[in-house]
Structures are given as structure tokens and as C-alpha cells.
């Protein structure tokens, strides 16, 4: 390690947008084979730093050295040539092309893979196979990416990131931008194994909000706050609380739900009995009383997402019954569910939860426009007032109800999606599918606060959490689903000291 230059060395890198210092004099070094965790709240400057590393943004000040050579990126392909590959938060693969094409499409100009614009399929497939072998992933290079599972696609992204240039002298740097945000536990394990293999020939920057993972996977952890590096420590001996303190200005309150409150009498807000959808879930029965939170935990194939959609009328069931407020419902559709006071926050926020081109006002008025209506007409002034109230209450930033929602960060979008449903005085059942997906600690706490507030006013909550910790923190009752069947139930009001490992064992 003596005369080998660091894979990446940043010296006082800064980038300013207007008055905001997005990246503020960041200096760091990454050595060969190191796995570095990078964490911080949304808006702490991680994204801008990654953009600088990948050649999308140029720093105003500072020096960047890669494998001992000063780097001056003008465009993304420069970073790729220097051996920096990024796996983005949102997958950037062509799902209609093959694995090999996705891995190699930036390299096809290189001699051998194609000539005169005609692709040499044999060589492209062989070259991709070599990359896949190198990172130890068994995938058919000729498979269509759209046919792969999510985690396999992520492997393709990693392969693409390290495929950059096999003849490069230095060590490649692979940046994983929140790769685990949408993965289930079993898939995270696969990814962790992959990262361990990667470090044999590459350095890795692992960006994540999940501190447990950062501590488990990485050698060193960097924390950013307000554009600056506030902590750079070995993961050995550092605690989650210390990282929290480096991330946020206030000390975190690890709030537990007050479970003393007994369930309210009367019929359940929603109850299902013997509910079955072929190939998804079988014979599921449970009920949620007003003010209660029931968490559905399980892997991605457990059928819990499909179950949640069925409750909301977005999917049909083959047999079994659904009762809402004590009345059995038939021909359950989304309009009927919404009229009955049900709400659904989908996992695919951008696709199903919001209209990106609409401003906050119109997004909030989507589900329950009644409040802003006079006769058959929508009153824009009233809509704006309602939206402004929600923006203030949830602290949506920027506090601009007229800006298209698509331009907001994920966390602020999620607040607005939530407001769309909370904007209903007769909210009976709130169904949440991965409500904290991709959100930072601060926004997560705000969202959880609103969920609890809804509970306190008598709303029943069905929660599909990202993590088991989230279930333990929020739920009154936990249902464990495995391959579509309920394998365990835990009443959190009586169960004490339930361990995460126990639940994982029931899931898989």
C-alpha cells in the first residue's frame, strides 16, 4: 500500500448552485479494494458529489485524482473511460435489449465488437460473458433484460459499471447509488455477496440510507450534511447513534408507538377472510380495527403487495370475503374503495401515486376533490388553500404548490402523495406499500408521524414496510407471509423482545 496511489483522491472539491453550496470543500481518499459507505439526508449533497464523480457536473473548485492522475471530466463518457462506473438508484437499463447489449453498448465502438455499424453478436456475447464471469454472476448474456428479476438486473448494472475498459491500468471504482432501497432482505444478501467479490479487483462506494447495511458491508463510512463531510470513520466501533448525530442537526428520537391504547370496540375497519388469489396468496384472514396498524412482512414473492392491492380493489381475488366496516363487499373496485374511505399509497410512487406534470394543488385534489368543489365546479382558490395547508403541515420543500410535482425530490413527493389521501375527513383505512422507500431519516420520521396521527383519529392502517425494524417500530400486529400464506402472527401489544431474526426465519 506504500507507493500505490489511491483509486480516488478528492481535494477540497466544491460545487455551488446559486447561493447553495451543494458540495462544500470535500476531501477524501479511497484505496484499492476498499468499500466505502456514503450516507446523509436527502439534499445533503451526495447526489451532486456522485454527479461530479460521474462527469455530469463539474466542480467549481478542487482537484480530483484517479489512480494518481488528475482527472478533468467534461462528459459522462470521460468518467467511464477513467474507470468510474455508476449503478444508479433507478435502473438505467434497456429492458428490451439483451444482457450483453446492455453491458457492452458503450463499448461497441471499441475494435472487435462491431465494424461499420454492424454488431458482431458473437464477440459482444463473449465479451459480456467475460465480465459476468469476472464478477461471478451466472446470467445468460443473450437473455432479455426485461425478463430478469430486479436483483439480476442490478447485477447487469454492476457488470456494465465494471465493463468499462478491461485493459485499464488502474483499479475501477464502482459507485452503487442506493442499490438496496427497493430490495428485499434475501436480495440484499445476494448484493452483499456481490460487493464482497467486487472488492477483489475494484473499489466500491456504497450509498445508502440504511445504516445497518452500511455498517455491515463497508470498511469505512462517510457522512455528509449540508454539502460537507461531517464524519469519515472506520465502521469498526462506530455506532448508529454517532452516525445519526453526524447526519442530522437534532438528535434523533427513536420513537416507539405507545401500545397501551386498547383496540377500539365495534366492527373492524377492514377484515378479510379466506382470501385467495391463485398464484399470489392463499387463504389469508385478518382484520384491522380503527386505530390499529397491521404490518404485512415477507419477501417480494410473498404475495403481500398483491394482497394490499386487492384490499384497495386494484386486483381481484378468486375466493374469500372482504368486509369493510362490518359489511361484506362484492365487485370491489378502486372507485368504490375510495368512496368507502380507503386509501392506497403505492410502492411505485412515480408511476401510480402521482401525476408528475401536475402541481401539488392538483395532485392533492386528485382523490377527494369534494372538499374543493362548489356544485359541479372545482374552485381553484379552495384547492390552493387546501394544498397550502398540507404543504405547511408536512413541511414540503420547496414550499411551492404550483411547481410540477415531478420536479420535487422523492421524499417531498411522498409527502404530497400521503396528503392526497389524508385530505379526507372520513379516511377509514390507509394501505401503505413501502411508504418509506428511498426516503431519508428526516422525511421518514415525518411520514411515520402522519401515519400515527391518522391512527389516533381512528384510521386503520395496513402497512407493507421496507424493513422488519420498521414493522417493529410501527405495528400493533405483524403478519408474516411466505409464498402467499400467513406463516405467523405477532401481537406486538403482548409480544416482548421479538427479534428481527425470528421474523426473518418465518419469512424464508
Amino acid at each position, binding site marked *: 500500500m506504500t507507493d500505490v496511489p489511491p483509486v480516488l483522491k478528492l481535494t477540497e472539491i466544491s460545487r455551488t448552485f446559486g447561493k447553495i453550496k451543494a458540495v462544500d470543500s470535500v476531501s477524501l481518499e479511497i484505496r484499492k479494494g476498499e468499500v466505502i459507505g456514503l450516507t446523509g439526508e436527502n439534499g445533503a449533497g451526495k447526489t451532486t458529489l456522485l454527479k461530479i464523480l460521474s462527469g455530469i457536473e463539474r466542480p467549481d473548485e478542487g482537484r480530483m485524482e484517479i489512480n494518481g492522475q488528475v482527472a478533468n471530466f467534461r462528459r*459522462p463518457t470521460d468518467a467511464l473511460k477513467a474507470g468510474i462506473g455508476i449503478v444508479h438508484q433507478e435502473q438505467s437499463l*434497456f429492458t428490451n435489449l439483451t444482457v450483453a447489449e446492455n453491458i457492452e453498448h458503450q463499448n461497441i465502438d471499441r475494435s472487435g465488437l462491431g465494424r461499420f455499424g*454492424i454488431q458482431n453478436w458473437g464477440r459482444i456475447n463473449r465479451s459480456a460473458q467475460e465480465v459476468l464471469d469476472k464478477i461471478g454472476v451466472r446470467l*445468460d448474456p*443473450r437473455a432479455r433484460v*426485461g425478463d430478469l428479476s430486479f436483483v439480476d438486473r442490478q447485477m447487469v448494472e454492476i457488470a456494465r459499471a465494471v465493463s468499462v475498459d478491461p485493459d485499464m491500468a488502474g483499479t475501477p471504482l464502482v459507485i452503487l447509488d442506493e442499490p438496496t432501497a427497493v430490495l428485499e432482505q434475501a436480495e440484499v444478501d*445476494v448484493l452483499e455477496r456481490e460487493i464482497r467479490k467486487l472488492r477483489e479487483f475494484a473499489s466500491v462506494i456504497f450509498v445508502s440510507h440504511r445504516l445497518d447495511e452500511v455498517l455491515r458491508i463497508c470498511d469505512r463510512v462517510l457522512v455528509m450534511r449540508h454539502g460537507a463531510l461531517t464524519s469519515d470513520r472506520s465502521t469498526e466501533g462506530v455506532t448508529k447513534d454517532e452516525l445519526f448525530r453526524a447526519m442530522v442537526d437534532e438528535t434523533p428520537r427513536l420513537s416507539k408507538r405507545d401500545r397501551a391504547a386498547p383496540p377500539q370496540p365495534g366492527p373492524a375497519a377492514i377484515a378479510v377472510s379466506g382470501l385467495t388469489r391463485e398464484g399470489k396468496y392463499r387463504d389469508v384472514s385478518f382484520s384491522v380495527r380503527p386505530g390499529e396498524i397491521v404490518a404485512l412482512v415477507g419477501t417480494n*414473492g410473498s404475495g403481500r403487495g398483491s394482497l394490499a392491492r386487492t384490499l384497495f380493489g386494484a386486483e381481484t381475488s378468486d375466493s374469500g370475503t372482504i368486509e369493510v366496516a362490518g359489511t361484506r363487499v362484492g365487485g370491489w373496485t378502486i372507485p368504490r374503495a375510495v368512496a368507502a374511505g380507503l386509501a392506497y399509497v403505492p410502492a411505485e410512487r412515480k408511476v401510480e401515486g402521482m401525476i408528475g406534470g401536475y402541481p401539488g394543488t392538483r395532485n392533492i385534489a386528485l382523490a377527494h376533490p369534494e372538499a374543493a368543489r362548489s356544485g359541479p365546479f372545482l374552485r381553484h382558490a379552495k384547492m390552493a388553500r387546501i394544498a397550502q395547508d398540507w404543504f405547511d403541515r408536512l413541511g414540503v420543500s420547496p414550499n411551492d404548490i404550483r411547481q410540477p410535482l415531478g420536479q420535487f425530490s422523492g421524499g417531498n413527493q411522498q409527502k404530497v402523495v400521503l396528503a392526497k389521501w389524508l385530505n379526507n375527513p372520513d379516511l377509514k383505512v390507509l394501505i401503505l406499500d413501502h411508504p418509506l422507500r428511498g426516503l431519508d431519516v428526516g422525511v421518514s420520521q415525518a411520514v411515520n408521524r402522519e401515519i400515527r396521527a391518522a391512527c389516533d383519529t381512528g384510521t386503520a392502517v395496513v402497512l407493507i414496510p421496507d424493513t422488519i425494524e420498521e414493522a417493529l417500530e410501527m405495528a400493533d400486529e405483524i403478519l408474516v407471509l411466505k409464498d402467499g400464506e400467513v406463516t405467523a402472527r405477532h401481537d406486538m401489544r403482548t409480544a416482548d423482545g421479538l427479534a428481527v431474526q425470528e421474523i426473518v426465519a418465518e419469512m424464508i
Partner: protein
Amino acid sequence: MADAAQSGGGGTRAAGPRTAPRHGGAPFARLFGATTGPVGLISALVVLILVFSVLNPRFASVENLQNVLFQVSVPLILVVGATLVIQMGSIDLSVEGIMGAAGMAWILLSPNTRLAIDLGVWAWAVGLGVGLGLGLLTGLIYAKLKVPSFVVSLGTWYVGLGIAILLYGNSSLPSLTSDALERWPTALTLGLPNSFWLAVAVLAAGVLISNHTRFGRGLMAIGNNEPIARGSGMPVDLYKVAAFAIAGLLCGLAGILATMQLGSGSTDIGFGQLFIVIPAAVIGGTALSGGEGGMMRSTLGVFLLIILNNGLVLAGVDPDYQSGVFGLLLLVAIIAVAWPGRDRLKVAK
């Protein structure tokens, strides 16, 4: 699915319970550019042929087969261009206008009853040039000025039609006077009409472009996700213009061939072609949203529609009913084809 393909390629990872990759590796499915072979399409085609053969034995005759191939030629040339454009998520509606302009330009410069000019091979160059030019115009306005191709190509349709009408003027109908040119489209080579051979050559070039060139695969990538295509340094605008230019060129070629087949010039030589070409691509599985389908599948779509048309005539359906019946059957065919894909319209988890 295509198990044979797995053994050669390193197999699949046995990661999670959800890992059930399907493979587009079988040569047959690969040729058709999809994960599943177009079994439904081919069986629909077989059923149609059987039904029409029973209704009228003449349907299965050699003469009728040659007739079908003759009719297939023009839309087949058109569908190659249309597929390239639709694969990248755009649409080209200018087909009929470009055909009119190119066909008219070609016949006026070839041996004809109106003008005593015979440019010989240069007449082809001018005709094709008109098509290429109009295609370039569509492509440039679409790619550079960011106007939706739907609207731009509606415009170029009428520009083309306008050119054809101006060229036609109000004097006599231009008819071909060269026997050789007039007979060429129907003349048989190896038992099949020359028109069809021309279309086959175009189709072969189309398959090569679509499946084996950076450009062709780039169009698929653009149709799948344009921002990523841009972000990875692909010359997206150039590809867009090129796709429309090729489509325009092929419209020009189709206009010339159709004019030759008819033996005289007509401003609406392309009448009804758009109604064949776009449904053919869609029936073949080329989603209008882009990124899906392939040349061979569009070809099957063309055959399906032309055989349907031909069969209805031979089955003795009253001419007054033919349009309506054709339209209805077209709806049935599209629903049948779209049915297996309806899950894909839902948001993927």
C-alpha cells in the same frame, strides 16, 4: 422457454425464488425479435388460409398465391420503414402522400403518354429522392424542433399529396408506354412475381438493419428509454432523422412500384396503405409506445391483413360489405393479438 439456448450461455443464476429468467435465445424467436415466437400470429394465419380454402377452392391456387404476393409487395416495403419508426416510439403517417409524390415524379420522367422525357434510371433517382427528401423533412422537424411525429408526418402527408397534385396538373392521365416497365412487376422470376422479390430484398435489408446494426438496436433503445439512450452518448437525434429518412425513401420506392403495378400515375396511388401498414405492425406486436416488435413480425401482420382482404373477395363477400367486414375482422385480430399482452399494460412491480 428456450432451454436449448441456456446450456451454451452459462445458464442462469439460481438466486432467489423469483429468479425465473426466460430466454430469447431460440433462433426462431430471435429472428422475430421477441421472447416468445409469434405462435398466435402464425396459427391465425393458418386458420385463415384453411377457412378461405374451404370457402373457395380457388383461394389455394397457384395463381391466387402469386396474386397475394403481388399485393403484399407494396405494404411489405412500407412496413419495413414503418417498423423502424414505430420501434423508436414515433409514428409516420405520411406514407400515402409520399407515395403519391414519388410515384408521380417517377412516371412523368419515365416513358409515358404525357411528357416526352425519359430519364431512364434517373427517374428512379428523382422518385426515390422525393421520398428521401420528405422523410428527411419529417425527421428534421421531429428531432430538431421537437414536434410530435404524429403531427409532423400528417403535415408531410399533405405536402406530398400537394406535390403529386401539382405534378398531375389538369391535363391527361400519364400512362406508362414502356411494355418492359409495365410487365416487370407481374413477371415471374423463379415462380414468384418480381414485385415480391423487390419487397423481399427490402425486408432482408430491414432485418439486417434492425437486428444487427448499432443504428437498429439504437432505435430499439430509444423506444425503450430515450433519456438513458441520450445519457449513454447515443446520437439520438441523428438516429431519429435517419429512421424517418429511410421510411421516406421506402415510401418513395413503394410509390414507384405501385405506379408501375397500376401502369399509370395517380395522386392517390397510396390510398388505403396506411390502414394496412400501421395495423400490420401493431398486429405483429410492434407496440406503438416503441421498443418492441420486429421486422418479421410486422411481415406476418401484412400477410394476415392482405390474405384477409383477398380471402373476403374470393369468399364472395358483397363489395358493399367488404370494408365493414374487413374493419371488424381487423378489430377482432387486434384484440386477439393484444390479449396476451394486456398484463404488460399494467404497471410492473
